[in-house]
């Protein structure tokens, strides 16, 4: 009951204000002020740069605009095997991410939820969240050192057991798997927080009922916990397609080297390399626009699929 009261109050205020035709009220101004920085940030970094997409159709140099070139940059890109290779590599890593990185925090949250010793649970949660605050530069340096064929202790162990040292970061086929592993290592604890929050809201009576019905721990997980988590999982799943390619740039840039570039060059690093490092802004912008178009298409498609097939017929927008 307390919960519904708390929700009702702002609605009441909002309703009264609406009736009076007032947008800014004594109560709403602080709320607007709170959202103002986020709005400014969004407008500055998401909307103001939008016209910059036009660079994809221009000869734009450090000296400035040189002229329109139509689809020339796109033709150049689409003729490059290297570009398509980067495209495929991106998808490979994204798919591995959905297969392993996306479910990992859900599984972790479920496991954590089963721990009954609170102090142990807190320690585990803290330790697993901590890597999220370590920069990718540091994480990559640590793992490159650990896995080094000459200095790394992993190879020391392999040698101790009579094996030949393995240079992990020279094996192109291994790279997407290594990267996925590192993303899980770094992000699983932090990503699990939102699921743990959702789990804390599950009505304890449901578990009691399940126990009365004879459900064991595993049965409770599938019959109570997962259905309770489903809306959260769905929202996060759909939203993840909005920035399906993001979050890869830093780790890949830090870990890639010429030996593994056949699988470690992704769209983001290609755009960075072409657009900024080589100062071919038009080409970089064209690749960026291509990437954004795919993200947008995916988001709309997934939202449509969700609407079409979910039991309530709702997407997230």
């Amino acid at each position, binding site marked *: 009951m307390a919960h519904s009261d708390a929700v009702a109050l702002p609605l009441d205020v909002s309703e009264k204000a609406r009736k009076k035709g007032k947008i800014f009220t*004594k109560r709403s*101004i*602080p709320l607007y*002020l*709170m959202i103002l*920085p986020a709005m400014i940030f969004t407008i500055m970094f998401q909307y103001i740069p939008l016209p910059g997409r036009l660079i994809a159709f221009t000869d734009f*140099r*450090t*000296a*400035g605009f040189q002229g329109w070139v139509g689809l020339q940059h796109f033709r*150049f890109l689409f*003729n*490059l*095997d*290297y570009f398509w290779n980067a495209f495929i590599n991106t998808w490979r890593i994204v798919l591995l991410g959905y297969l392993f990185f996306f479910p990992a925090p859900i599984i972790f949250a479920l496991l954590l939820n089963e721990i009954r010793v609170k102090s142990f649970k807190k320690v585990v949660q803290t330790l697993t969240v901590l890597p999220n605050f370590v920069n990718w530069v540091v994480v990559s340096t640590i793992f490159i050192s650990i896995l*080094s*064929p*000459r200095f790394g202790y992993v190879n020391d162990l392999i040698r101790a057991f009579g094996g030949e*040292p393995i*240079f992990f*970061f*020279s094996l*192109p086929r291994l790279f997407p798997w290594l990267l996925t592993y590192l993303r899980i290592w770094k992000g699983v604890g932090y990503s699990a927080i939102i699921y743990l929050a959702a789990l804390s809201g599950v009505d304890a009576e449901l578990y009691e009922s399940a126990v009365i019905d004879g459900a064991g721990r595993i049965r409770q997980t599938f019959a109570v916990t997962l259905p309770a988590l489903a809306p959260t999982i769905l929202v996060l799943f759909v939203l993840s397609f909005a920035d399906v390619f993001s979050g890869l740039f830093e780790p890949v840039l830090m870990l890639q*080297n*010429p*030996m593994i*570039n*056949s699988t470690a060059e992704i769209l983001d690093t290609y755009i960075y*390399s*072409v657009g*900024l*490092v*080589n*100062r*071919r*802004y038009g080409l970089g912008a064209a690749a960026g626009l291509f990437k954004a178009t795919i993200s947008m298409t995916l988001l709309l498609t997934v939202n449509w699929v969700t609407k079409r097939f979910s039991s309530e017929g709702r997407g997230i927008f």
Partner: protein
Amino acid sequence: MRKVTLLLFGLSLVVAGSLFATGVQEEAVTERPILEYTTLFHFDSGDPTENLDLKEEFTPWFNDYFNVDLRITYFPRPEYPQRISLALATGEISGIIRHFGGAYAAELWADGSSMDWLPLIQDNPNWQKLEPGMQEEWMRDGVLVGFPTAWMPGRNFSRHIRKDWLDNLGLEVPQTIEEFYTAMRMFTENDPNQSGQDDTVGLTTRTTWLLQDMFHAFGVPLNHVGGHAITTDPHDGDRFNDQMLKPQMVAALQNLADLYANGYLDPEAFSIPSGGAARERVWQGFAGSIYDWTHNYVWYTNQARTVDPDAEFVPILGLTSEYADRYVNPGGGYGAGEPLIMVRGTRNAEEQANLLLDLFLGNEIAYWSGRWGIYEKYWEFGPNGEIVRLPWKWTDGTPAYAPGPTIGITNDVEPFFALWQSGYITQGNEQASRDWQARETRIAEMVREGLETDIYFQYVSGHTEPRSEAYDAVSADIRRIFLETVTMATTGQVTPQQALDSYRSQMRAIGAQRILDEANAALGKTSSTRWRY
């Protein structure tokens, strides 16, 4: 209302903090003429962060001595060109940049990042005194895209190899690629340092930069910095060829693939972040060989002896094979050093350009200080006006054999001040000094002999890179495609032939044949009919 006040107060704090953190503040007023200079180069004193206290003393001294405001920005060495590009793209850099070579200078001019030096300095007497060759080195279609930092006989490269390891294994210094392969095998498998452990490999490198002789030996020389394979071809009338199109490139790549597959080539060679890191692997006794500046072999010996007192390096000036019966190592000729770039939009660009020339080419003390460090601390004039370098020590107290910490802003410019080699600061070790002199003399003899007998080749003067607008537009792609091709073939991801087929297809896609045609036309030559994309 209190909440609103608190919120506004909090927001004000955030904004004020952000402004403070991003350094929105009044620039210090100075009446001295400003010279902004960006470099990675700290002469022989390592990267910017090494021996910092020694390096930091140079600029204040220089500014007080010459009453100028020299402002130096140091970028770390790995990925230096990329960092320069990023700084230019974001507009956070101005003044003069020391860059790596003519290709970069031409690229920056082509995309409008840099200024033409000529209108800025053409009336400066120090510019007019320069040798015509030096003046023209970085000239492109009447535009001076970079200012030359040197004019001196070209430095040679050679392969440095552990002589003491060869002796331990009963091997002679290799002369052919086959002998070299054997030495690398034995360096890896036969315990050359007699430690009883499997702790050595044959050779290491930093990408293809320190691996060039492995191509030269097969008659497929790389460009002057080992960045790609489009070069004036000493085997084909000095026209520009893409060496990757020649059939013997398959054998060159197969040789590298064999070295790598058998563990004779350092497995981390293509992921080592810098030349310094690769050199360290050599002098620390892990790898027995590396390709590097010829004059560095003294340095290798000195450094390696801090780990192993018996260590000794000798240079191999070039290797031969069935494909190339003579050494092909770039050498001789005159070089203009790294070009200085004037960033577009630099305030007082003309003043800065002339200040640079007036100081570092017009004032002898500034010139030598830019070369050897603080005057009367690291060097002084001798009784006959000769340069005398003074003994000094590193921060940790060890005697230094290198030039004093400086920015290396000047290099040897022979017409201005008598060319003077640094020599070896004896620090009480007369025998070492004599050994050093003997080796230098021997190298000079070998280089002279090599040039006279056509053993060495020089890239066509002023054409170390193709002069072509098409090249400037895609040179970064060419470097990437080349490096990936070599890396994939070497590490066995594809066969050499597959790698080269992919290379040809990618080069076709970026219009590489036009680059060759334009570059050869600029030389008054036609492109090869044999090796085309």
